[in-house]
């Protein structure tokens, strides 16, 4: 990556009214400079967005701020409400009202909302919990965040969006003054995201400052007062959204150090005959045998075509893909799958793979990678036969294969012996993609292929998708980001509540049309 942009003027020079100033923060890990001389100044009562590509150092910076890395582990100073702070742990930072909500929510699924909110902070006398106080205070907090659930509801029974709100209620219970949200909307649908952002605005009105870390630049533009941009562990820009007009292009330019003229690489589609067809596909819920999840879906993909599937969370897109991929989801599955006009058996994952189908999961950490294994082993896992003879693995061949994909897909790592767990999201995704490419598929189903990865890596993933399409493979992309679908696919299906409710060539499609198709399906 080229760095053409010079670091902007150092921000945070004693601006009056700052609730937080982090000055010259430097944090090193063995062999890596994670943060070098980073400055961050947050005004009291503002929403301050921190953006940067994955690996830019956002999370590390927040860990420094919240005391996960205690004072002494880093160099630099933290001033909070005018006083220098030397946090030893999270409890220290929470005491003064700095609360961080991580991307992976820290809730106990089988405890109730009330129990979770006051976990570790129970209203109690002599160790005996005052349940009346717990419940009534929970009710108040839930009202503030706009949740209508009973305090008794178990966390496992509410959706991710609501869980996020419970986390925020928990933060409120601790008298939060500076709320840090790490990718809060990553797994939320649009309406839940909007509700969350509205809540942040309301907090701002009440004088609570927030630091918002997000990849979703459109959301940042909706709410942020100030944007700090990190790149490669350094502060490169600080943008005041009120002083100047900021758009996504401006932020991206700072993030990647170059302008992404087009966020989606161009491709001239050369589309052939249909190679993949699904007919009248019906799937029932994996636990509730009487609940139909996929209600008779038809779908086809042509050679060299990128087909997008749009839809809201819970519309059944992942369930559709996984049920086709060797029945890895659901039960009582019926319908036909045809490849090149011939019906194929996709009854097990092995059979689906043999037929030439690959499914790249939306959840790469839990379903895609063996995190404790190295890159090489992950890449060959789905096609060990390809690197072995008589079931004995040829180490040299395996290495050659892994290095080939490392080059082809530009996986950034110290070597293919590096553990997958140490890679950034974008590079992890490239490893998962490599694994499936090595299995030699004709049809690739990519489920949220760019979720949680940064702009630069997204572009690379799109380029890979284009290349595969040019090679004549059929590609299905499931995505919740409509601009992405509009940017890379040739044709878009719209799915809602287990049905295809729309199909359109991309040149005729728009976000409005897609939403309209979804809305109309609800009316019927």
């Amino acid at each position, binding site marked *: 990556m080229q760095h053409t942009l010079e670091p902007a003027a150092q921000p945070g020079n004693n601006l009056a009214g700052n609730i937080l100033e982090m000055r010259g923060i430097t944090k090193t890990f063995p062999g890596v400079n994670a943060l070098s001389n980073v400055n961050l100044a947050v005004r009291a009562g503002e929403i301050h967005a921190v953006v940067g590509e994955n690996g830019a150092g956002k999370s590390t910076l927040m860990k420094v701020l919240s005391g996960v890395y205690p004072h002494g582990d880093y160099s630099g100073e933290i001033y909070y409400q005018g006083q220098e702070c030397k946090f030893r742990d999270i409890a220290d930072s929470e005491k003064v009202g700095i609360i961080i909500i991580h991307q992976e929510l820290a809730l106990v699924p089988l405890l109730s909302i009330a129990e979770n909110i006051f976990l570790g902070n129970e209203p109690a006398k002599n160790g005996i919990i005052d349940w009346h106080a717990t419940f009534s205070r929970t009710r108040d907090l839930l009202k503030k965040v706009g949740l209508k659930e009973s305090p008794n509801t178990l966390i496992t029974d509410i959706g991710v969006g609501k869980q996020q709100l419970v986390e925020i209620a928990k933060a409120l219970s601790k008298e939060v003054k500076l709320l840090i949200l790490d990718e809060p909307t990553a797994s939320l649908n649009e309406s839940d995201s909007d509700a969350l952002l509205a809540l942040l605005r309301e907090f701002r009105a009440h004088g609570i400052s927030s630091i918002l870390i997000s990849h979703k630049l459109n959301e940042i533009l909706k709410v942020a007062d100030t944007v700090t941009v990190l790149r490669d562990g350094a502060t490169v820009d600080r943008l005041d959204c009120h002083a100047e007009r900021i758009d996504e292009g401006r932020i991206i330019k700072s993030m990647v150090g170059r302008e992404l003229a087009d966020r989606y690489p161009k491709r001239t589609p050369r589309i052939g005959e249909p190679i993949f067809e699904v007919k009248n596909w019906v799937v029932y819920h994996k636990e509730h045998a009487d609940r139909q999840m996929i209600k008779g879906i038809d779908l086809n993909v042509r050679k060299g075509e990128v087909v997008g599937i749009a839809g809201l969370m819970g519309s059944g897109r992942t369930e559709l893909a996984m049920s086709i*991929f060797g029945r890895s989801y659901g039960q009582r599955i019926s319908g036909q799958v045809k490849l090149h006009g011939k019906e194929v058996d996709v009854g097990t994952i092995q059979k689906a793979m043999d037929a030439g189908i690959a499914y790249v999961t939306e959840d790469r950490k*839990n379903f895609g*990678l*063996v*995190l404790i*294994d190295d890159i090489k082993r992950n890449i060959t896992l789905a096609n060990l*036969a390809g690197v072995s003879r008589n079931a004995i693995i040829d180490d040299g061949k395996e290495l050659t294969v892994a290095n080939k994909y490392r080059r082809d897909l530009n996986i950034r790592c110290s070597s293919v012996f590096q553990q997958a767990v140490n890679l950034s999201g974008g590079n992890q995704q490239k490893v998962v993609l490599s694994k499936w490419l090595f299995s030699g598929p004709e049809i690739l189903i990519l489920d949220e292929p760019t979720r949680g990865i940064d702009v630069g890596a997204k572009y690379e993933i799109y380029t890979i998708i284009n290349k595969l399409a040019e090679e004549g493979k059929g590609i299905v992309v499931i995505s919740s980001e409509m601009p992405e679908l509009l940017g890379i696919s040739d044709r878009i299906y719209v799915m809602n509540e287990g049905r295809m409710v729309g199909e359109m060539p991309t040149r005729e499609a728009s976000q409005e049309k897609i939403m309209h198709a979804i809305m109309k399906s609800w009316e019927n």
Partner: protein
Amino acid sequence: MTQQTAAADELGHHRSLAGFIKNNIREYGMLLSLIAIMAFFQYMTNGTLLKPLNLTNLILQNSYIVIMALGMMLIIVAGHIDLSVGSVCGFVGAVAAVLIVQFHIHYIPVTIFCLALGAAIGAVQGYFVAFWKIPAFIVTLAGMLVFKGLALYILKGQSVGPFPVPFQRLSSGFLPDALAGAVEAFNSTSFVIGLAVTALVIYFNVKERRGQQEHGLAEEPFVFFLGRNILVAAGFILFSYLMASYKGLPNVLIVMFALIVLYAFVTSSTTIGRRIYALGGNEKAARLSGIKTHRLTFYTFMNMGLLAGLAGLIFAARLNTATPKAGLGFELDVIAACFIGGASASGGVGKVVGAVIGAFVMGVMNNGMSILGVGIDLQQVIKGLVLLAAVFLDVYYKNKA
């Protein structure tokens, strides 16, 4: 990422000596601690530990633990545990005794039947773990009770023996000396075999290093490679010399050695081995990569049962009776051997050689402390602390890395 040249990059690993030691501290550390423990007891027992007679005993005493540790390593790597191996071991030995001694059935069909029985027991337990998702801890805890009880039942609470002499040889027999008398009071055949094995091991090590170099992978500094091979060769030659100057190589050692080689190969170089590691590392990802995870789990347990059955036969042959107490507490030694040998309780990590070294760490301590006359009470305390210390060091170095 800064510009790193691709060539140097593809090797990736630290080339420096210090870096290499740091990366491989646990592999060498384990072997070195075994050597240290042996040296300690050799000194404390005034040389009794490595006397040919005692060394032979050490092998005989630990063979069944080592054999079961091979299977247990696979189970633990796959992310499970098997608490029933001690009971299964005792039960299979009891069945063998009843069939051979009381029913006068020939020992060969009985041996085959007993191995199949062990595999079947493992298969039943594996069935519940793999296909019904019942935690292995519970299934094998049940198995532990069931087979301990069944052993008592079929033995009617009494010891059954003795076995016919050919059957005893499984455990107490020695490789006959084809070159008998070539050297006075020396089993030349055993020594020659020892030399041959040493040569083979060195040959394979050199061949592997050649292969690594071809792919630019030889990360181990040559000094280390040389030192390791000299150490291994010296160990093997010394060992076969000592054995040869007593009665030669015990049959059970040959069985055990063959199994160690087989399992080390399967885990490190075959697709099935790789799949077991992936299964333990992330079952969902493994399944979505087309690996039949249920079936693989099932086979891992079946394999464990088979090895427990074999261990049961060896143990019964060694005592020359089947007793209701046979196998009592073996599961603890076996599991401890795996964890001392570097297995991770959360699955996906562990090496066969580690389990073998772990088993011998326990074995040498048992043997050495017994010679020194340390009471059984203190022995347990010390063994427990060693287990904790080994795992603690493991975690400590992992966190530091």
